């Protein structure tokens, strides 16, 4: 007796047929009384057909055609699988002739099963004699609950953007409600998009992003319709954006990272990112805030200004009016006033590095701004294949204003009045999250030309004065990170720099430099606690210099009439290479403690000198909030080409040298305060100065390494952000910078020695639209060399001052208050910012120097800029 059980699985989602999944015979799975009966019947029939040999079932019926059970759409399944057992009568042709339910699963399921089985067709059952026969079988039909219906089509795509800036609002919960019922809930992605699925009707869309206005919008959703909605939500909390980013890993004792957003609203900077430098402790102020970079008492030429690791010739236009690299593309400033890392060399002062931000890869952005003296624009956006591109341009229009306001009877007239422009073009590609490349093409031009109608105080000063500083640079960089933690940055910068100064027909200075800078830096994690960093820093430059002018003055030399000085004529071409390499180990022997020894090597071809600069840094996180740092390092700086020129200068010079020592402590305080303190000391020697005997002996060395000096001081920086709408810092530095020009002379103050420097900067976002800022500065006056008498040079018809002790006097203290007010109109996709930047709001006459009469018997104070309101308008989209 053989029992056959046939299984079939039927999927029936909401009345729809689904494919038949299986009908495999399954032997010996189920037995029932009816089975036995059916077997008996078949056997009896066989016996009737052949009495002497009993017939047996040779081949059971097999299903030829099946059909799924069809259930009404609203059928509810008590269990995921419902089983209906059926008894089927199959005739000798394989047709189902009778169906009976043996085990019910309910009327609905029974009916559906019977209906389905009625369409079944089988192969006939075959007896042992080869004849077909009718047969009765039991069939167990399993009806499986269909899976949930597929989601309805997307009906709503919503994007949340910040009003005015179009910055995506990510990670914002968005809810679709219909009455009290929540239909759908989801979070926006980083791009601000969220997809919602809902049924037709009028649901309410709700979103409450942090620090922005809430979204409550009733929608009209229709079937088979997909809505795409973009909402622009106003920033409402009066909060400044996060000013102080997460602490970056520092290698230096004192490294101040100033994000761009923090800078844009500082009073007195006109929104210029790079002009914030003068507000930081460790920066000395120069005359008229003239743009020279004096860091911790170092000579302007002793510090580096870098753009992504490469030097740039000019940081400011016209002595500080505007930075020569557009703020729109600046990400942050790294400010290291001394004890900088070994990746940088050829400098004995500090480092200011401009970091360029990643361009917007989502939308096209731009801005246009114009103010009292210049105008510019910036554009950026995504291109195909993960490329992004941006460009900016600034140009002054002082040249159109000055001739209008300058008196016609003035002693000078402007032919080509002061003019500057700068441009930047950036293209970047992110290959993946590990590799990216960037190309930058940027440049700047400052040009000044005016005519001295008649000889002035100095008969040599007449005719056209033309001054031009220009540079054009191209920089390519590639950054790659490997899964092993190795990181490599490679960059190359090349370009031309031209400096031309001409006064009348006889005085000129022309310097043209073509240079190639190559940098490669690799970081390798050797062990978990040990990291190696090393690289190359190679510079090649071709210099073409021609001059016919008095000897270029050194630091500490006083101004005397040009017509009384010996002129020197030089025309020279120089090719020089300066390869540098550095290696640094960062070792963390214990949690929170790190020591970083490093060594830098440089070769200066001009003077055939190999410099080894060992440096050391240690950092110790004393508490969760406090960190101590210590740095000691040697720094050397090559001489300038004319100083070591075989004809003009002294080839046997050695590089200037400085030993830096500093200690710093940083502490994060409650209420959004952060405290940074540092003390420092620098010893300087081999400072290049004039050889005294060279003034009358042409065989004497024109330049000598005779100078030495010391700089010491302390700095305190207190940043505050106690409430979200208020931010700023208070900075104080005490420093002394002293020099001795040659052995046996008295020590004198450095030209920009400023013992006290107090700066307070704050910005307050008062209400929506209004932002106020202030900057208050109180500084010691710069040193001054008094003039005690004069000598009349009858040949030149000028009086030559006779100086007292070098830098033995001091100008009056500098005090200035700058104020700024911004009002921002925020439209959906753009912003309009009207600002008023008032410099020297109290109209204080800060002394910048002395003005003397022709024979230096009378003098009067030369004061700095008076109250100067600068009105500007800036549109951003």
């Amino acid at each position, binding site marked *: 007796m053989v029992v056959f059980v046939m299984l079939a699985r039927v999927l029936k989602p909401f009345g729809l047929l689904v494919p038949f999944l299986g009908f495999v015979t399954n032997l010996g799975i189920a037995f029932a009384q009816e089975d036995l009966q059916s077997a008996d019947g078949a056997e009896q029939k066989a016996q009737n057909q052949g009495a002497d040999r009993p017939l047996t079932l040779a081949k059971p019926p097999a299903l030829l055609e099946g059909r799924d059970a069809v259930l009404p759409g609203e059928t509810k399944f008590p269990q995921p699988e419902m089983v209906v057992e059926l008894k089927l009568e199959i005739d000798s042709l394989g047709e189902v002739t009778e169906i009976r339910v043996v085990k019910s699963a309910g009327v609905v399921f029974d009916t559906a099963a019977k209906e389905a089985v009625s369409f079944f067709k089988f192969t006939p059952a075959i007896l042992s004699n080869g004849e077909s026969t009718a047969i009765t079988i039991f069939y167990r039909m399993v009806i499986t609950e269909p899976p949930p219906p597929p989601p309805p089509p997307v009906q709503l795509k919503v994007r949340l953007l910040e009003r005015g800036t179009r910055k995506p609002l990510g990670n914002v919960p968005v809810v679709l409600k219909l009455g009290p019922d929540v239909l759908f809930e989801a979070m926006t992605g980083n791009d601000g998009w969220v997809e919602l699925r809902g049924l037709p009707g009028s649901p309410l869309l709700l979103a409450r992003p942090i620090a922005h206005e809430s979204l409550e919008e009733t929608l009209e959703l229709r079937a088979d319709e997909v809505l795409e909605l973009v909402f622009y939500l106003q920033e409402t909390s009066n909060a400044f954006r996060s000013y102080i980013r997460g602490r970056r890993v520092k290698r230096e004792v004192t490294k101040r990272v100033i994000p761009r957003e923090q800078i844009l609203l500082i009073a007195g900077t006109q929104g210029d990112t790079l002009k914030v430098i003068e507000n930081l402790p460790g920066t000395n102020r120069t*005359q008229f805030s003239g743009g020279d970079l004096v860091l911790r008492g170092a000579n302007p030429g002793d510090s580096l200004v870098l753009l992504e690791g490469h030097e740039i010739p000019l940081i400011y236009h016209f002595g500080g009016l505007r930075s020569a690299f557009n703020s729109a593309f600046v990400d942050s400033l790294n400010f290291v006033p001394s004890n900088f890392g070994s990746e940088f060399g050829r400098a004995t002062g500090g480092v200011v590095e401009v970091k360029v931000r990643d361009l917007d890869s989502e939308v096209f952005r731009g801005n246009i701004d114009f103010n009292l003296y210049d105008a510019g624009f910036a554009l950026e956006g995504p291109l195909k294949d993960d490329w992004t591109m941006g460009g900016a341009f600034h140009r002054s229009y002082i040249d159109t204003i000055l001739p209008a306001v300058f008196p016609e009877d003035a002693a000078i007239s402007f032919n080509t009045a002061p003019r500057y422009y700068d441009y930047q073009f950036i293209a970047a590609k992110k290959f993946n999250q590990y590799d990216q490349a960037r190309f930058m093409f940027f440049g700047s031009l400052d040009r000044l030309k005016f005519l001295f109608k008649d000889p002035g105080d100095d008969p040599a000063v007449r005719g056209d004065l033309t*001054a031009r500083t220009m540079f054009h640079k191209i920089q390519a960089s590639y950054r790659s990170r490997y899964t092993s933690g190795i990181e490599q940055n490679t960059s190359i910068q090349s370009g031309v720099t031209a400096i031309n100064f001409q006064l009348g027909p006889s005085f000129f200075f022309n310097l043209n430099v073509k240079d190639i800078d190559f940098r490669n830096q690799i970081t390798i994690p050797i062990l978990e606690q040990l990291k190696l960093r090393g690289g190359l820093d190679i510079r090649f430059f071709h210099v073409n210099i021609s001059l016919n002018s008095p000897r270029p003055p050194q630091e500490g030399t006083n101004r005397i009439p040009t017509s009384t000085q010996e002129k020197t004529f030089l025309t020279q071409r120089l090719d020089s290479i300066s390869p540098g390499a550095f290696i640094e180990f960062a070792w963390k022997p214990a949690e929170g403690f790190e020591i970083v020894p490093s060594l830098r090597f440089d070769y200066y071809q001009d003077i055939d000198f190999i410099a080894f600069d060992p440096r050391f840094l240690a950092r110790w996180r004393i508490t969760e909030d406090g960190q101590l740092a210590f740095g000691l390092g040697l720094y050397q700086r090559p001489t300038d080409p004319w100083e070591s020129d075989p004809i003009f200068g002294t080839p046997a010079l050695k590089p200037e040298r400085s030993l830096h020592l500093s200690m710093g402590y940083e502490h994060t305080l409650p209420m959004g305060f952060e405290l940074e303190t540092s003390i420092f000391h620098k010893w300087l020697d081999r400072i290049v100065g004039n050889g005294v005997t060279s003034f009358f002996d042409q065989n004497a060395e024109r330049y000598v390494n005779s100078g030495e000096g010391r700089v010491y001081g302390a700095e305190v920086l207190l940043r505050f952000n106690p409430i979200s709408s208020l931010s700023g810092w208070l900075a104080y530095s005490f420093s002394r910078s002293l020099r001795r020009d040659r052995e046996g002379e008295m020590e004198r103050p450095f030209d920009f020695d400023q013992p006290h420097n107090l700066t307070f900067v704050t910005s307050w976002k008062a209400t929506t639209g209004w932002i106020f800022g202030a900057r208050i500065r109180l500084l010691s006056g710069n040193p001054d060399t008094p003039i005690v008498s004069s000598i009349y040079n009858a040949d030149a018809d000028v009086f030559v001052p006779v100086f007292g002790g070098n830098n033995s006097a001091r100008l009056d203290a500098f005090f200035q208050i700058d104020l700024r007010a911004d009002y921002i109109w925020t439209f959906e996709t753009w912003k309009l910012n009207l600002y008023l930047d008032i410099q020297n709001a109290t109209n204080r006459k800060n002394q910048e120097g002395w003005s003397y009469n022709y024979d230096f018997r009378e003098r009067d104070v030369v004061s700095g800029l008076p109250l100067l309101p600068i009105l500007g308008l800036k549109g951003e989209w």
Partner: protein
Amino acid sequence: MLCGFKCNSVTFPATAQGWLRGLAGRVNRTFLLANISFLFLFSGCTKDFQKRSSLQEIRLLTLEASPLAVGPGEHLTVKRVLYVPSGESVETESWSFCPVSLGSSFAYQCAIDACVTELTPNDDQESVTFVPFDLAIACLQSLSESGVILGDVSGDSGSNGQKTAEFIKISIIHRFEAASGFKGVSVKELPQYFQAVPTGVNSPPVIESVSINGSAVTPGGSLAFTRSELVVEVVVNAASTESYFDQNTEVPELEEVTISFRSSRGAWEVDRRSGLETRNVLSFEEESEPVTELTIWLVVRDGRGGQSAFGPITLEKQAP
């Protein structure tokens, strides 16, 4: 307020320092002077000082040397031209000589104090005559003993690779003290050759003619005027100017003469004016007291040490 370039000599601490210091990244200081000038336009004004052209006290106008370059054993005469206002007098006056000075950077300090020689004035009390070579040699010997070997602008090298001197620049210092206590120190420099002076080294420029309001005037002459301004026209003898070979640039150059205008009253349009034919205007509009009489001096210089004074010219105001 915009004040332009009204101020005279302006000194800023360290203004000039480092203006060429740094290269390819440290070169922006080249621009500093120009920038300072630009910023100065917008800076606060200073008061108007007494003008250079205004003769109010004793003033040395020229130190006229003859010749303008001396050779070995040659006599040198240096004559001073002083303006002494009425009521003022020179109390003391002295001359000195320095063969090697440190130049204007060091206030013409003599390289070796022992080389400073006091000179005896001539009988006219206005000039000195001496042989600088003799004084210079004595000084050079002492320099030589101290290891200093003087250089040579001609570029010729000596046998030991060092340059031998063709000439040195000597200095003559003139000092005076007025009865009022006012003191003045002036310097004149000129080359002292160790060989014979090359021909055509230099000669002083000469003012050929001067006319005031169209009337020719002569040194020591006087002129009456009626208008509130004087138009002074000066013609320099073109033959007295010369071309020269610039030792620095090694190209021939032409002297460019400059006229310095001085007067005891009034204000000149400009203090100095360049050119062989120049014109300047002296006006009295801003004078606090009525002008009845004034003195004018004119000095022409060739920028290479040549100078000659023209004056005094006395002008008397008459009723129109």
